[in-house]
């Protein structure tokens, strides 16, 4: 792929999803867009690019964006954030939300569903503490295809082995041929919605806990700051934000502050975090 074509496709991705594609990732365009080219009947990427330049067909632009924004997802990724969620954050919110008995959680880049379903499994295990509570998990992603995959709750053997303890697999999944399907009760706890992180999340409502892990790394500094500012507006003063292990708010925004001693967790600046620094 020549530089002009790479820059053209990269600019479309930036505009539509915020994703910044570095030149050394040009190989990703080729590997991920070939299936899109085939789907639309093009002989190869050059023909696809010509059509995009001339006609900018919405359906094709959408599929290109989806193909490039699909990221790997794991159950209970990095484990520790989920342990903290189970052992510290939820119990603390149960204390502070006694009057409303309502907790809203947002998985902001849900991909194929492993993150929101990990959250749902934990909450399922905490049923005795949460009896009579209204706990909502909203899972969003830019990719309709990924959301449909996530809704199906169907995972390959490889996917269920990455992060999911075997006892949890046995308890909450059924084997369907070569794949494993998550229990309908757990699936029903998660509401999936199409959402672009470049848009205003106000319509989604307010969230006590936001998981936005391993997605900011694909954005430039300004986009990161804008996304984080919008997320902050959607959270109460004692809300908790989870970012990925390689991500931070430092030097990007002053809307969030790290919760000391709890790597990857952030509170609202000037707020009263549900979880105190350790």
């Amino acid at each position, binding site marked *: 792929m020549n530089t002009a074509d790479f820059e053209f496709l990269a600019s479309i991705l930036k505009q539509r999803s915020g994703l910044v594609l570095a030149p050394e990732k040009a190989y990703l365009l080729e590997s991920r867009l070939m299936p899109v080219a085939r789907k639309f009947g093009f002989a190869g990427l050059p023909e696809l690019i010509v059509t995009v330049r001339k006609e900018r067909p919405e359906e094709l632009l959408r599929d290109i964006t989806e193909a490039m924004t699909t990221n790997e997802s794991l159950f209970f990724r990095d*484990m520790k954030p989920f342990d903290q969620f189970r052992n510290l954050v939820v119990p603390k919110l149960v204390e502070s939300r006694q009057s409303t008995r309502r907790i809203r959680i947002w998985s902001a880049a849900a991909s194929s569903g492993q993150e929101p379903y990990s959250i749902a499994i934990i909450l399922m295990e905490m049923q005795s503490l949460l009896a009579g509570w209204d706990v909502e998990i909203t899972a969003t992603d830019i990719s309709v295809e990924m959301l449909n995959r996530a809704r199906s709750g169907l995972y390959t*053997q*490889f996917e269920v*082995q*990455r*992060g999911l*303890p*075997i*006892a949890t*697999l*046995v308890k909450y999944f*059924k*084997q369907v041929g070569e794949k494993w399907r998550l229990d309908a009760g757990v699936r029903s706890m998660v509401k999936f919605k199409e959402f672009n992180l470049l848009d205003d999340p106000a319509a989604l409502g307010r969230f006590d806990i936001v998981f936005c892990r391993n997605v900011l790394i694909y954005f430039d500094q300004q986009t990161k700051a804008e996304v984080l500012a919008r997320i902050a507006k959607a959270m109460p003063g004692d809300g908790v934000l989870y970012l990925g292990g390689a991500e931070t708010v430092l030097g990007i925004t002053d809307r969030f502050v790290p919760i000391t001693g709890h790597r990857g967790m952030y509170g609202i600046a000037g707020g009263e975090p549900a979880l105190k620094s350790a």
Partner: protein
Amino acid sequence: MKTCLVVDDSKVIRMVARKILEELNFSVVEAEDGKVALEACKSRLPDGVLLDWNMPVMDGIEFLNELRALPGGERVAVVFCTTENDLQHIQDALAAGANEYIMKPFDSEIIQTKFSQVGLI
């Protein structure tokens, strides 16, 4: 350095597992069936066992039962690693006292995750 006993009748699988585990800083001992593995455990209990199911002489489940009966054998973390990937086999392994279960094929990330889940890493 923690020790891991790799029990599999396939020399290739043992080699691949050894390479992955040594990169994770384990000292690796190999055994080609359950009986050889049991003898190794009798002379020195490892911290963990990566265990195949189907092997000649003594299979994985029989080995696991014998291991758990050894003094201190209940403390060894046992991770099955087998082509038996149906729910019934998994349930049988857990009932026999397996700590985790890997369905072949596997890669280093899966081994690392499972070993971490059983506290070996």
